[in-house]
């Protein structure tokens, strides 16, 4: 396939003349070498880092904390504390340091389980999750109609196939029963 963006089609043939670029070079700094982020040396390297800590946020929900910390930061998010099976897995994960895969792989697993728990939770609150809308497929219908219709067709074919299979099975098992 041909693209407009091939090596032969280079811009900037004007090289060296940058008058067309507003602000060219206005932040250039020959002293900026090496550049940000540079360590700003303070005496703290020798005497230890201390700072006047901000006031502590009161804690009334369970917050999982990195094993690499020895205190609670002054603020933290309190939304969605760990719960259920996914919460148990998260508590296990947080017993390992951030350097350990046992910290991260269980969290990914807990996230997947959490998605299942979310569906159960929705149903328990009398809410049937509208997966079609949650996946934003209305946008697909609008901007990618052809692809969307193909997807729908494929899903329909599979659904019809599966239904036919189930109906046939029932028929077969039904006919077996009648022969018994």
């Amino acid at each position, binding site marked *: 396939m041909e*693209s*407009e*963006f*091939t090596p032969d089609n280079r*811009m*900037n043939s004007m*090289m060296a003349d940058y008058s067309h*670029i*507003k*602000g*060219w*070079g*206005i*932040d*250039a*700094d*020959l002293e900026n*070498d*090496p*550049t*940000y*982020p540079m360590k*700003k040396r*303070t005496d703290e390297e020798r005497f230890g880092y201390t*700072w*006047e*800590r*901000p*006031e502590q946020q*009161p804690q009334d929900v369970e*917050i999982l*904390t*990195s094993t690499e*910390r020895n205190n609670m*930061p*002054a*603020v*933290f*998010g*309190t*939304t*969605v504390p760990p719960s259920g099976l*996914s919460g148990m897995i998260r508590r296990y994960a*947080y017993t390992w340091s*951030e350097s350990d895969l046992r910290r*991260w792989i269980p*969290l990914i697993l807990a996230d997947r389980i*959490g*998605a*299942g728990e*979310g*569906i159960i939770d929705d149903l328990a609150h009398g809410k049937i*999750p509208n997966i079609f*809308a*949650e*996946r*934003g497929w*209305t946008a697909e219908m609008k*901007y*990618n109609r052809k692809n969307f219709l193909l997807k729908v067709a494929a899903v329909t074919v599979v659904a019809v196939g599966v239904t036919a299979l189930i109906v046939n099975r029932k028929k077969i098992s039904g006919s077996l029963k009648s022969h018994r």
Partner: protein
Amino acid sequence: MIAMNFRGPFRVRADRDKPIPEIEHPNDAIVKVLRSCICGSDLHLYHGLVPDTRVGSTFGHEFVGEIVEVGSSVQNVKVGDKVIVPFNIACGKCAFCRQELFGNCHESNPEATAVGGIFGYSHTAGGFDGGQAEYVRVPYADVGPTVIPDWMDPDDAVLLTDVVPTGYQAAEMGGILPGDTVVVFGAGPVGIMAAKCAWLFGAGRVIVIDQLDYRLEFVQKFAQCEAYNFNYLGDVVEFIKHTTDSLGADVCIDAVGCEAAGDAMNTLLGRKLLLQGGTTTALHWAINSVKKGGIVSIVGVYGPVNALVPIGNVVNKGITIRANQASVKRLLPRLIEHVKNGVLSPKDMITHRIPLHEVAEGYHIFSAKLDNCIKPVLIPS
């Protein structure tokens, strides 16, 4: 209130019954959101790639809004102020904040030490709800929030929360000197802004690499740079070498991060099996395309576990790698000036304005790159 609600990979919705957040700390503020963006890095959450992304969370680290309530110790902002809220949650007091490393605050994230608190970015980044909602709790209101100048368009302001400072810092960390050749991998909003800002540091040549023609076309005009589709280049590294007298670029910027395309093996390990902290294709290209002694600047987001990179080449070529979450608060004064003087016009990147209650479509459009989407903004109705 209406708020985005994450239900699992590729599933989000707008709920109408989320409680309005409350002051939980004397230096908190509650902000009524005017605009919030969906960011490329929100897609990593949306795709289920960031560990400890809990169902029921509200995403959104790019938002501006009006302060409607302040805690007892807040002094620098007041009710009624319209503010830019940097995506980093920073205390302003710890050893890192005092070094202006506002993206590395030690007083905002209990769950991990490797990253500071970020609004709406999983429990790995502190478990804070984000701004894709009508209201949001903003900790350390005396430190982050910056009043929007009255001349500034809120569409420009909202992009100063992340995209503009991250793109600018990508160029800044490259240590660009006048005349340098800069290659930016990724033509998403951050890559586009990095390319634009590279000129401000005096770049002599700016090249952007991506695979979506509509984005390449956009960046070519917006950032007045060269733009190439890697699908037509053959070997990207070889192309960069050939176009720079076989020496390589002075500076390479990774503005892609963990969902890079372009290498099947890397995609399998990073994006499909989640066995490494992301697909490292862009970083791999950056390391191999840069000149000996050159600088690789990383602003793409990667996961917390190991990721494969050609580290031997880093050693042999004497490459300097610079990387960080943007220190938004540090950069805001200069960037506001650039917007005022018309040097930067961030809002031109906004392609979609979507009502907050249609957030699910917004995520799908951005994720599936439908309708030539570059930057979607959510607007609470």
